């Protein structure tokens, strides 16, 4: 982590520890995407992922309030660790959820910065169409490579065997296809047609 950020994290952690309500939103805004990426990558559905992210943010807040973060400049690592522990607990035992964290406030809430949280059915459909449209804009062979990579979990060497191409070719095509899609989807996001 660059040094300039250490001060920033330390400052935020200390403000949270002091009970600054505005800092709670900042914490959520800053780390929700990371936690959501982690949870959604490792769990099967976004709804569960969202719940766990909420729990993780509350757990971080609680720990900060209780002064359990000894090195406040390492806030991101602490948030990551908290999220990871909750996800692992969930995976280990789907039936046993971690106990809700008590903040010492009657109605403690964390603002939900996830734009999908209030996404309507139509918006979800539109988002899917945008992503599908972007995928369909690729050549069939590149779509195939992405399908085998991301949905089936094959590596370039394994895909090369399946498709009769060289692994370097697969790697190159995959990198180019992903870059193209990232650029395209980023543009869509900027235009407000896509949230992620």
């Amino acid at each position, binding site marked *: *982590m*660059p040094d300039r*950020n250490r001060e920033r994290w330390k400052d935020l952690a200390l403000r949270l520890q002091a009970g600054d309500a505005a800092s709670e939103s900042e914490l959520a805004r800053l*780390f929700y*995407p*990371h936690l959501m*990426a*982690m949870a*959604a*990558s*490792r*769990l*099967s559905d976004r709804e569960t992922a969202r719940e766990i992210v909420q729990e993780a943010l509350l757990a971080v807040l609680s720990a900060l309030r209780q002064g359990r973060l000894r090195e406040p400049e390492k806030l*991101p*690592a602490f*948030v*990551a660790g908290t999220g*990871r522990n909750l996800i692992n607990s969930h995976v280990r035992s789907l039936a046993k959820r971690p106990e809700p964290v008590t903040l010492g406030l009657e109605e403690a809430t964390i603002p939900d910065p996830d734009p999908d949280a209030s996404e309507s059915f139509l918006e979800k459909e539109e988002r*899917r169409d945008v*992503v*599908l449209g972007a*995928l*369909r804009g690729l*050549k*069939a*062979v590149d*779509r*195939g490579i*992405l*399908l*085998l*990579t*991301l*949905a*089936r*979990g*094959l*590596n*370039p060497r*394994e895909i090369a065997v*399946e*498709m*009769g*191409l*060289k692994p370097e*070719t697969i*790697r190159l095509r995959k*990198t180019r296809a*992903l870059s193209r*899609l*990232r650029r395209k*989807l*980023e543009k869509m996001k900027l235009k407000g047609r896509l949230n*992620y």
Partner: protein
Amino acid sequence: MDCDQIEREELIEKYLTGRLDRAEQEGFEAHYFSCPKCLKKLEVSRLLQEKLWEQGEKILPKTQKPHRVWIKRRAWAFSAAAVALVVGGVALWWQFMGPGRAPAGTEETPFSLMMLARIEPPSYIPPALRGAEDEAAERFRMGMKHYQDGLYGEAVPDLRAAAELNPERAGIRFFLGICLLLTEKTNEGIEELRKTISLGDSVYLEEAHFYLAKAYLGKGDVGAAKAELNWVQEKGSNLKEEAAQILAQLR
């Protein structure tokens, strides 16, 4: 862990498909919690993964819908079955494409056709006894050593030299054509296989027609591929059945 390493070692894809060990996973998480660039890449890749899970069969008609699971290291073991389903779906897929609607070389080759076009390198057993060699035979032998090691690109210069020295030897032309196809020089490979065929009857004639058909499929020229496969079905022996199966899938 840095951004270059993540790109180079394809850690985002491995993370999303559960192919990192615990230490690598935690290392990557620690990185993207402090790196907006890698977080963005992860978010987009995850979004794509979700859509590919949900829509896989729409993106590649008649493929198996992938299971919505946390894919483990052994996921590759299921790939053969998945690919078999892809290939099995070619017939219906082709109905939508229409044989006359995709002129050769003018449109991209569908993924499913590429699967049919896959080339397994034909085996080569060097002669047990060698007599006096001319230069062409020597270069051929050198090239085929690379071929047997799976180094098809490295085999090409020797085989090309051998073909120039002895243009009438079908075996040289044939294996040169195969090596060119395997190194994605499809047009040159096709040319060499045509030359093999034009040399007339040889032990490589049937195989040359068969692999030529594969090369045409790779280019999306189904009409030309069918013509070659029909030849194998009518006049061939060893590859008859395989040719019939591909023809059936193309129909």
